[in-house]
């Protein structure tokens, strides 16, 4: 069985045969589930499928309706706000914490555990706890008021204008620990000589980070980006657990629109149209980048 790979020039199909066989689960997943499922979804988004998929084509009707639905527009807007802030804050906070942790501190293990433990908890749990802390009747607002500041108002989950930030607070709590770990790992991977050289040249520390270290951590940033960004696009459970999309429809997100219309409204066509829009957006951003990033020859 072994050793064949080394034997001269086998024909094209048999080349790396074992590798191909071993990759069958991956190929099936990629082709049947992700690609097949996506095409299936896109295909049925042109039908008026209700509870069950059916082949009555209605052209672009589902898309017209989608883009005239106020809830969808709000969902998109929320995702944009949430996405941008989540990305920025995750990276900044994660990196700052990692940089602090990298200062040869004591109790590093303790701090790391503290920052990382929320990641072990599900979004349902995260949402529940933060809903409880941000509840104006029990949580932070009532505590501050009982300290004498009676006009203090902090009720992000009940204020349509800022509710998405209430969700952001919980999301950052849950996710930044992992980002910190990734960044810390990246910092630890930097050659000590670089620091020495920077110091010899008299470059201030912050400048060393920004100009030298961060560019060297490209791979870490990419892995982190994939993880954060995929989490952003899929955000659903947290919203459901914290606000159920409320007050009103102020904290709705696209994934929830998809789910609600597919299953609660029993309008698969509409749900598929919404998911197609999500997929297209993702594809436009991700595919070219992913192919450049992962498709080139390996960089060793």
């Amino acid at each position, binding site marked *: *069985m072994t*050793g*064949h*790979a080394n034997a001269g020039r086998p024909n*094209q199909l048999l080349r*790396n045969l*074992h*590798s191909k066989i*071993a*990759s069958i*689960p*991956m*190929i099936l*997943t*990629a*082709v*049947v*589930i*992700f690609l*097949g*499922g996506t095409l*299936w*979804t896109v295909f049925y988004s042109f039908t008026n499928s209700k509870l069950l998929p059916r082949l009555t084509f209605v052209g672009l009707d589902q898309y017209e309706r989608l883009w005239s639905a106020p809830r969808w527009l709000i969902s998109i807007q929320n995702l944009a706000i949430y996405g941008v802030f989540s990305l920025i804050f995750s990276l900044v906070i994660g990196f700052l914490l990692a940089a602090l942790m990298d200062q*040869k*501190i*004591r109790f590093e293990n303790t*701090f*790391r*555990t503290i920052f990382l*433990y929320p990641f*072990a*908890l*599900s979004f*349902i*749990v995260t949402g529940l*706890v*933060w809903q*409880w802390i941000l509840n104006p009747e*029990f949580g932070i607002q009532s*505590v501050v008021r009982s300290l004498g500041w009676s006009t203090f108002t902090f009720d992000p989950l009940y204020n349509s204008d800022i509710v998405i930030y209430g969700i952001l607070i919980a999301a950052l*709590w849950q996710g930044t*620990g992992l980002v910190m*770990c990734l960044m810390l*790992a990246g910092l*630890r*991977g930097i050659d*000590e000589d670089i*620091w*020495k050289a920077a110091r010899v040249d008299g470059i201030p520390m912050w400048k060393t980070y920004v100009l030298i270290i961060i560019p060297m951590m490209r*791979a*870490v940033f990419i*892995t982190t980006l994939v993880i954060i960004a*995929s989490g952003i696009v899929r955000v659903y*459970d947290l919203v459901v657990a914290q606000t159920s999309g409320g007050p009103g429809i102020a904290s709705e997100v696209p994934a929830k629109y998809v789910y609600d219309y597919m299953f609660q409204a029993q309008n698969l066509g509409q749900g598929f149209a919404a998911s197609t829009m999500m997929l297209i957006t*993702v594809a436009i951003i*991700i*595919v070219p980048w*992913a192919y450049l990033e*992962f498709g080139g020859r390996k*960089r060793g």
Partner: protein
Amino acid sequence: MAEVVSLNNPSVKTGLSTKLAAGPRGKKPRPMFSPRNIMVYGALIFAAAYYLLPLYVMVVTSLKGMPEIRLGNIFSPPLEITFEPWVKAWSSACTGLNCDGLSRGFWNSVRITIPSTVVSIAIASINGYALANWRFKGADLFFTILIVGAFIPYQVMIYPIVIVLREMGLYGSLTGLIIVHTIFGMPILTLLFRNYFTSLPEELFKAARVDGAGFWTIYFKIMLPMSLPIFVVAMILQVTGIWNDFLFGVVFTRPEYYPMTVQLNNIVNSVQGVKEYNVNMAATILTGAVPLIVYFVSGRLFVRGIAAGAVKG
């Protein structure tokens, strides 16, 4: 690049000697209360408070009785500690007619998590290995699709997967659920394993091939023994993800396999009169206990493994 495994060595040595030893970052020996230290520790402690606050609230609330919760504020420690909510959450909270709390789903969660974790890691590690060392034509395309797949909301895929599982005759079975977890764990895990195996010295691989070792031999004899850290990372990610999963557990199985999160959802969402926040919080901690323990036990390996899997690529 052989330093991968020992990446963390400098940090392992940190400890009491830190303030004396001039670290490789070459700071001058500094007193404990230098302004810089105060800033660093101040910031860390401030951040730690933000991260710990919810856990504190959970624990404190779960130990209070309902009357105290209604009166007091959520940050005050319990006046009278009671374990009633814990007992109730574990063994007697009701959903519909079943009044046996979380205990009902605990073993199901174990039965789901262990095989799903093992299978998904096995497959993803082989994927990563094939992608790193045995590229075949088209492999990059499949991998790109896989990465894009990481961005697809789970909910969108429910329908196609129900159909696929139905056609395979696996709908409602534990096997079906394991397959689903394997599928959705695959993108990120494959990425991590691929990066890890890429970062291993290529000479090792080449030498083995010159010796005539094949695909599986190299995987089992050379790659596996060198890959403990990344396996730990994958294990942690999967245990957390699968243990916390609610949607797949409830959509793709039948009630006798419902995981603990289904009971958690039921306890949290079935309000009988007033919301019993203490029971909710106790249930929350109990459900999160397993992944939390995994984290506390293997947290150190986690960073080391991540360092290896995410840094190089």
